């Protein structure tokens, strides 16, 4: 299988890439830091990947997306799975008070993914097969006070994916929306951890499984579907008073 991973050096992406490497897949990795990409590439080769190539891209430079993705398709000779993993977790207080910051975060977590999907879509339509999986977040299910800028960007992507899924149905291309809950990774290093936190490896297993099964919207781990159902069901007149 030929796998494209965008935001490849994030913890969840790395764990997913390792599973695909152990299955003997060919991978193309895209991320911002060259040194980290090179390290990950050698790691994946040792783990059993048939080939690993990589290219550097700052995902907030939208103009460069087309060229980089073209190169990735040529490198792999078609793509079976495109996995989009990049993201950043902003400080809500800061971005709330500073539009420039908010814009940057929404670009990273939302608009950049729309740009990538716009480039990927015609390529997958032409192939008439494959899966595109995007990591969004449970934070996109409802705007909560501590992280609604992040949540808004994620729900932008989730809504876009719902529409795109229908559009690509006729072309045998599946869209997977992966919504992890709390993940214990370097991105969340500053938070105290509790029993609801899961490891990137656990999320990665769920990702690989749901892509294989052709799932649509996946909560990882699965119990987040129940939690978010309850959170979404709280009447607004109560919800607006909640600070969690």
């Amino acid at each position, binding site marked *: 299988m030929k796998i494209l991973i965008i935001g490849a050096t994030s*913890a969840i992406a790395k764990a997913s890439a390792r599973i695909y490497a*152990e299955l003997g897949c060919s991978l193309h990795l895209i991320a911002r830091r060259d040194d*980290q990409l090179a*390290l*990950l590439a*050698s*790691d994946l080769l*040792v*783990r*059993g990947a048939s080939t690993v190539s990589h290219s550097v891209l700052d995902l907030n430079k939208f103009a460069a997306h087309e060229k980089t993705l073209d190169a990735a398709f040529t490198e792999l000779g078609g793509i079976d799975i495109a996995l989009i993993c990049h993201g950043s977790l902003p400080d809500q207080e800061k971005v709330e008070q500073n539009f420039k910051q908010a814009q940057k975060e929404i670009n990273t977590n939302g608009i950049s993914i729309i740009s990538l999907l716009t480039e990927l879509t015609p390529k997958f339509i032409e192939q008439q097969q494959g899966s595109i999986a995007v990591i969004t977040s449970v934070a996109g299910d409802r705007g909560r006070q501590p992280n609604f800028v992040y949540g808004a960007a994620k729900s932008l992507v989730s809504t876009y994916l719902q529409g795109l899924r229908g559009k690509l149905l006729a072309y045998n291309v599946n869209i997977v929306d992966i919504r992890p809950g709390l993940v214990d990774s*370097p991105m969340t*290093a500053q938070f*105290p*951890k509790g029993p609801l936190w899961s490891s990137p490896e656990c999320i990665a297993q769920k990702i690989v499984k749901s892509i294989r099964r052709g799932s649509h919207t996946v909560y990882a781990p699965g119990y987040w579907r129940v939690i978010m159902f309850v959170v979404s069901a709280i009447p607004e007149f109560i919800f607006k008073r909640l600070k969690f």
Partner: protein
Amino acid sequence: MEAMGWGRYPKTTAELIQPADSQALQKFISAQKKSASCISRGSGSSYGDSALAEQLVSSRFLDNFFELDQQQNVLRCGAGVKLGDILKICIPRGLFLPVLPGTKAVSVGGAIAADVHGKNHHLDGSFCAHVQKISLVLASGELVACSEQENPELFRATCGGMGLTGVISDATLSLDSIPSSYINQRSLIANNLAECFEHIEDNADSKYSVAWLDCLATDKNLGRSVLYLGEHAESENREIDTMYGERFGLGVPFSTPSFLLNKTTMSAFNASYFGVQKRKKSSATLGYDKYFFPLDRISNWNRLYGSKGFLQYQFVVPSESAFDCITNVLERISEKGKGSFLTVLKKFGESNENLLSFARSGYTLTLDFKNEPTLFPLLEDLDRIVLTHDGRLYLAKDARMSEEMFKASYPNWEKFMAIKSKYDPKTRFASLQSNRLGLTQ
């Protein structure tokens, strides 16, 4: 967060730092505030307090493979890589780790820091005998390479040094070639300790050798045991085992009440185990997972000892006095009405030059005890027996040995201290264990 070792005793509150890569690790170590002491932590498989401190530096994200040279059989990988992950990539290529401890959850960094041993110590030595090179982050934040050629004194202090010289960021390991991932196991029944020693001596050339002992058998049955011998099977089968536990999620989800493990249940378990083994066929071919890591099959088995946890007691004594010492120890345990659920006896080969490594030539006995107040006086008794026979305790399992016991039984501790104070003059690296043993304050 609450932190503890595999034995779940003692418990402490600690801050967990998880550097994303070796640069982040260097930055953290060099920027560390004066007062706090830290110790590196791999997968938390040491039993006692050797990986406990105010700040724990986790190697969790230092888990990259860098290079596998299949001509030379050499692997370079991060300190956070677990031995099980190495086996997963090695076995399909016909390679194997030369030394495996009883669990594959151990990280490479932890295996070096404790200089762990396996069932083949009598032939192949301990883990560090197969470590070619280490990258170590010193207290200054500097990353240095050490090996037998480069910084040899630092290498000798770091191998088996319980993380007190610095934080290991990556290591270069030699691997062995194997024909298959299966082990031909032969089991020999011994009706008492003398027979067990005889079997061990008679089979000294067997690649793997370890004995399970019924700790609760007394009098003429004292030391009745089953000796398991193993050789790599000569088939081409290089399957990677997945254990029942991993496949079906077999595990212990929470601490079971500790009264379930009492002398009666342990005695019944040990006696029936011995009975079953006695009737079983004496040879079998097993997957490597089943042979090397039987306990990994039940995840979190340590919770069976209850919320207060348990203590492992592993000592080594020279061969000349091993029989007397072990007989003494077993008798004392039964006198005090205590018992060990799992008891393991093994013969070690020669010791190495690492300053704080545990393994030395002789016999090693491993016992585990439920944590209860009446246990501690018994263990002190056992310490005295072990010390009279010129033995010592394994630091990776210890949670309570006294400073005097340690200093009397590890004669190289002063040499170790000289090297530690040279590279870590302000004592950045300290654990609850090193404080207790008088290596740090």
